[in-house]
């Protein structure tokens, strides 16, 4: 195991984040505050509370999930796409590193950044609403596993994409709609019967529900199912990466 290489990739990627620290921190804080104003204040004045939780607090886990997924996917994809695009990938391919070590470095950094931003949003929310975290361990569990799973998805997208459009496609057309429809801003139980069934096919529902349960002890689906589902997603991503590795897909000519 070439730990030195993993460390180098990780530090290098994190320093990219550090260079753009201002944007990295300020933009999620600003957009979260906007969500609080729009959803929390405007809509929240009509929807008093959901299952005993004030609407403003209720949306916090969903907001964190929304940003976590977007950040994990976009960092994960950009980290590996950029060297491909500039050609600097030659060095990675000629270095004594295994595919696993490359993934560990890039995905680790992408997930770290997403988690940091998730925690910043959580901290920001304390400025606006009262928050409780009933199950801190499970809160961190969902945060971590989700970040890694979607950073892996991002990594796969970054390997697959051969232009910037493709890089944007999946986050824009798949991730964002799924998150918005995944009960980030409402409880699935608020939906009409038929749509509740449809919603169960949305993987994000399980993430948001489990994450929200870790905060308030209330969930749309059994938290155990959420844990199982996130485990399944993680396994799917690892399987996909393994397959890409086996076929040498898209990296080595």
């Amino acid at each position, binding site marked *: 195991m*070439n730990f*030195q*290489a993993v*460390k*180098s*990739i990780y*530090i*290098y990627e994190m*320093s*990219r984040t550090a*260079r753009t620290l201002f944007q990295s921190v300020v933009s999620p804080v600003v957009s979260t505050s906007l969500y609080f104003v729009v959803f929390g204040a405007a809509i929240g004045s009509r929807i008093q509370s959901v299952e005993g939780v004030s609407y403003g607090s209720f949306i916090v886990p969903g907001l964190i999930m929304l940003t976590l997924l977007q950040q994990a996917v976009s960092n994960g994809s950009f980290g590996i796409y950029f060297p491909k695009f*500039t*050609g*600097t990938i*030659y*060095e*990675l*391919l*000629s*270095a*004594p*590193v295994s595919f696993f070590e490359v993934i560990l470095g890039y995905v680790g950094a992408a997930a770290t950044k997403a988690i940091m931003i998730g925690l910043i949003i959580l901290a920001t929310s304390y400025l606006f609403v009262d928050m409780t975290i009933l199950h801190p361990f499970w809160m961190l569990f969902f945060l971590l596993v989700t970040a890694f799973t979607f950073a892996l998805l991002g990594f796969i997208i970054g390997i697959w994409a051969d232009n910037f459009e493709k890089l944007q496609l999946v986050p824009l057309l798949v991730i964002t709609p799924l998150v918005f429809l995944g009960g980030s801003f409402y409880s699935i139980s608020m939906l009409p019967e038929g749509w509740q069934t449809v919603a169960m096919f949305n993987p994000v529902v399980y993430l948001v529900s489990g994450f929200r349960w870790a905060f308030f002890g209330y969930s749309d689906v059994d938290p155990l199912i959420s844990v199982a589902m996130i485990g399944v997603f993680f396994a799917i991503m690892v399987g996909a990466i393994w397959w890409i590795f086996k076929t*040498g897909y898209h990296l*080595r*000519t």
Partner: protein
Amino acid sequence: MNAIVSVQNLSKTYAGGFQALKSVSLDIKEGEIIALLGPNGAGKTTLISTICGITTPSSGTVTVGGLDIQKDYRETRKLIGLVPQELTVETFETVTATVRMSRGLFGYKPDDAYIEKVLKSLSLWDKKDTQIRALSGGMKRRVLIAKALSHQPRVLFLDEPTAGVDVELRKDMWNIVRELRDDGVTIILTTHYIEEAEEIADRVGVINHGEILLVEDKAELMKKLGQKTLEIDLQEPASVIPDSLSKYQLQLSESGEKLTYTYDTNADRTGITALLTDLGKAGLVMKDLATSQSSLEDIFVNLVKEDA
């Protein structure tokens, strides 16, 4: 022979079906400077990329330091440094950060003293904290060299190191190459320019259409294929070469004012004295004489032409 890199029957067919390497075999001796000479698309970069692990071979084997490049890639790649043909560098990173990153990728702990030495030897030390995008093209190439040297490789590949480089930097480059060779580093460089191969290399390999046409000690090559020509300007144009001179390899120019004699510098006798005597006997009067040596360029052009 002590081969540090050994290529055996290496073939490469790209995904599109194009065969860029056709059963190439080549042994590179430890400590030598070998130049791979060939026109655009000859397969030079493909050969280098395969040895370095960027391209996967379709068939054949490559060993570096006696180890297989696929089975023992961790060991072989540590031995190799690569300066790619394209100026592919990070944009926003500083020079030091990117060189340090390269060293780490190859599994070595940071060593600021060594990096300082490398940057100084490449005249990059005063640019160490500059973002790479703010460097000139020639400096970017130096950064690529610094990255390739960051892990103290024993074999260095330079893929067209002088493309887009001015005379001054080229001179520096050759000095660096010679210094590295003196330190025992084996150097493989590719070039389109024959003068470069002539100037720096110990051995020259000519490659075209994915095949190695020849590999030869530079001096041997020059000797073996080195022919000289003697050009004789005549006072009075001749219409034909007189029969008495038919035993010489002579060519008459169209205007009849110039005779060209081709001879081998290695032959026991060049035949010049006899020719000049016979020339006078045949009644031809010389106005002027000039000799010229065929360069590696001519050899190369001939080889590539024959191959086409």
